[in-house]
Structure formats: C-alpha cells, structure tokens
C-alpha cells in the first residue's frame, strides 16, 4: 500500500483546512448518499428505526464519522497509532466489512467535488483518495 508523500501531506492539510469547516455537511451528505446509492450498506444500521437517507440518525452519524476523518489529519504521521482505538472499535464491536470503507470514501470524494468544484483538482483528488485509503487501512488494522 502506498504511503503518503510529503507533497500528499501538504495537499491534504491545505485542502482539509478549507474542507473541515464543512465537516458536518460533508459527513451528513456523504453518509446519506452512501445509503441511497449503495443500499447494501443499510445492513449496518438495522438498529435504527429510520434508515432512510434523510433520517436524523444518518445525518448525526455522518457528522461523527467526518469529524473523525478531519481529526485524522492531525495524525497523518502515524495513522495506525492514532486510529488504534477506532480500529479496535470497528474490528471487535462494529465489524464493518472493510470493503465499505472504500464505498464511503468514494461518497466523501463526490461531496467534496460538489462543494469545491474549483479546488478539487485531480492533484487534490489523488492525495485525498490516498488519505482516505490510508485511514481505511488503519481502521482495518486490528481486524485480524
């Protein structure tokens, strides 16, 4: 798995400085889109009465997730270490199939393209894609 180059890290920090102001909005929209476009992901939320894309539960959870992603920027130099407890949560309690991290990442990128049509250049896109992939990899660290 490729690691983040110094240029990637600069790009990620610069873009996320702009984007994290909208973390809640990004999180809400990305999770809603994921549930709408990939209905199989609803299976992880069967404990909520309302799993429609517009449900309050979904919005709130999107915010939780995106805040954690924004926070991961501060742990760029050691994502594995920084995300250890989150990894344990996902491995032992939530047991989300890691394939779904890719799906959510895609939807986060789509929302970023919508919110930042000019700034989300291919160069920013590749660094952000690598960042989300690195976060996903760290989250899957404790799975087995």
């Amino acid at each position, binding site marked *: 798995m490729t690691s983040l180059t110094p240029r990637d890290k600069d790009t990620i920090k610069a873009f996320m400085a702009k984007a994290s102001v909208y973390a809640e909005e990004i999180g809400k929209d990305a999770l*809603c*889109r994921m549930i*709408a*476009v990939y209905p199989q992901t609803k299976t992880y939320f069967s404990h909520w009465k309302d799993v429609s*894309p517009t449900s309050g539960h979904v919005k709130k959870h999107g915010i939780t997730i995106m805040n954690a992603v924004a926070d991961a920027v501060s742990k760029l130099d050691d994502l594995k270490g920084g995300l250890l407890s989150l990894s344990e949560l996902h491995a032992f309690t939530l047991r989300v199939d890691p394939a779904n991290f890719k799906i959510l990442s*895609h939807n986060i*990128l*789509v*929302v970023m*393209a*919508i919110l930042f*049509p000019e700034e*989300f250049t*291919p*160069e920013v*896109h*590749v660094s952000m*894609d690598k960042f989300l992939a690195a976060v996903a990899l760290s989250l899957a660290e404790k799975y087995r």
Partner: protein
Amino acid sequence: MVVWTESELSIINSIFSSLDYEDIGPKALCRCLIVYPWTQRYFGGFGNLYNAAAIKSNPNIAAHGIKILHGLDRAVKNMDSIKETYAELSTLHSEKLHVDPDNFTLLGNCLTIEIAAKLGDGFTAETQGTFQKFMAVVVNALGKQYH
C-alpha cells in the same frame, strides 16, 4: 435485462444533455490518468504524460476524452440495448486494446466526480444513484466480450 424507470431515463438524458462533451471528456480522462496513474499504461503512444501539467495539455488525451464521451452517448441513445450496442467496442477493448476491465470503473469514478463538480447541488443522491447504475451497466457491457 436492465430495467429503467421513466425517472431514470429522464435523469440520464438530462445529465448528458447538460454536458459539454468537449469539456467533460478531456477533464474526466485527465483526472483518471492523474488519480490512477497505472491507467497511463494504455496511452503509451499518446505523447508526454510525464506529470499532471503535461497530461492536462496533451491534445491527444483531450481528443480521446471527447471520443469516450461520444462513445457513452451511444449508450444514452440506446438505453434498452446497451449490451448489443457495445458488443463491438467490448471486443475492441479486449482483443485489440487489452484493457483490464477494472479500469472502466476507475474512469467511471472520475466521470462521476467531474459531473458532480459541474452539477453541484443538482447532483442529488438520486441522480448519483441513477448515474452510477448507468455506468455499472456500461462497464458490464464493455466487459461482456472478454474471455
């Protein structure tokens, strides 16, 4: 057999009629070559792909991006027979171009991003779902003749 609702047909037609193929095509292909650099393997004869700036100013890449969008247009005009419409293209990509079909999805992702950036809030979850369904059908059809 793919079934399209009236709403889905309308969404796909609306998306494509709002696109300038000469703009979106090159952008989507450039994005693909930059975000997924291994896809450059199929463009060895296209000239300078050394860095993002070179890719973006490469006229062969731009022309090819436009070609791809016109290729997608054929699917839009034949929604009920995409598999048949693409049979020859599928054989071309398999036998002559030797493109790994996984790459079709990567280009599809980049096109999704470019369309999202263009349509903004108009790219609702429903629109995204329909567009991704369309792209999945296209990708499947392009992979059909591989053996």
